[in-house]
């Protein structure tokens, strides 16, 4: 490291993208931690019933892929970048429970190994980027699937749009957390407006990446896409055993 490297600027330097310690006060962070632990526990229980050998492998790949793509900050506006959150992508590929766990592993690795996202803020980051996107965004995905044609194109479009809206949803949840325990005295309305405004743009990037990825998996292994199981089941010779496999 060069002598000029200023460790006090870490929160806004290249590559640090998650909520650091300090933005949100300790009680609020702890409460989010409790919510995150509860959510992860439920996901683990559900995952235990859903995992087969194929899904274990696919979930590992999904998490590794999301880690890689989260490093690819793309420019969104003057002096601002955005990056994939990945919750909806994971939920569409492996289901919301396993998907939320995939993103949780990514966030934990980033926090513990790469010092990105504060230790005390890990719960906040898990709630916003693993739980809100994998569940909230996935509900939007399911609604869109009902509205759009029951085709590969419909699945891809639903994934893209839902993931974009999932990013905006996550930015709203951050605003709520800031309203409850934010430090630095910024007005809630200003923070909320700015967060939503910039995350609409980031959401477009999220939607494109998610749509492209889901489309690539559908083109090679459609049977592996959790969010497209109904298409697979209808195919001649498709396994009806998958029908009872709830989300």
């Amino acid at each position: 490291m060069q002598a000029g490297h200023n460790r006090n600027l870490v929160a806004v330097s290249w590559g640090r993208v998650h909520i650091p310690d300090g933005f949100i006060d300790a009680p609020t962070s702890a409460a989010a931690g409790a919510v995150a632990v509860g959510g992860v526990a439920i996901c683990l229980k559900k995952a235990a019933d859903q995992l087969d050998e194929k899904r274990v492998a696919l979930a590992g790949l999904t998490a590794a892929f999301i880690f890689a793509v989260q490093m690819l900050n793309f420019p969104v506006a003057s002096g601002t970048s955005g990056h994939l959150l990945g919750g909806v992508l994971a939920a569409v590929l492996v289901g919301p429970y396993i998907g939320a766990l995939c993103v949780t592993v990514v966030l934990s690795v980033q926090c513990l190994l790469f010092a990105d996202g504060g230790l005390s803020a890990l719960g906040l980051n898990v709630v916003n980027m693993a739980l809100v996107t994998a569940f909230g965004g996935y509900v939007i995905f399911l609604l869109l699937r009902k509205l759009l044609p029951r085709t590969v194109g419909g699945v891809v479009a639903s994934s893209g749009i839902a993931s974009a809206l999932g990013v905006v949803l996550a930015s709203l949840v951050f605003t709520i957390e800031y309203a409850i325990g934010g430090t630095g005295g910024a007005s809630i309305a200003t923070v909320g407006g700015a967060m939503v405004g910039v995350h609409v743009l980031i959401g477009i990037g999220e939607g494109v990446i998610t749509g492209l990825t889901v489309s690539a998996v559908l083109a090679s292994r459609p049977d592996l896409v959790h969010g497209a199981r109904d298409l697979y089941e209808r195919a001649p010779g498709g396994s009806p055993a998958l029908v009872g496999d709830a989300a």
Partner: protein
Amino acid sequence: MKARVGLGLFLAGGLLVALFLAFVLSPEASSKPDGLNKVAIDKGFSGTAKAHTLEDTPTAGYEVRGVHDGRLSRGLAGLIGVTVTLALTGGLFAVVRRSGRARAGAPPSGGT
């Protein structure tokens, strides 16, 4: 809606893509603050951020300590991250799956 490639090939291909993105493409990523940090700067609360508790670890900030080429350092951090994430997720889910099978009374030997 048929599988066009074998599972092994699909997984290997996917992993290669992830490694490529992390090693080759991540040094090209925008270094501008992301949405959250930009809002924090603009709205005046970025100063409340505290240095990370694990700031002195060898890969903090997606840089490998001791590798002085910034791009290589970030690329290597990406490779490490992808590998660790894959191993942790695979390990976690293998254990979770075994616990699920045990609860369901399936033979512990597995053998799918």
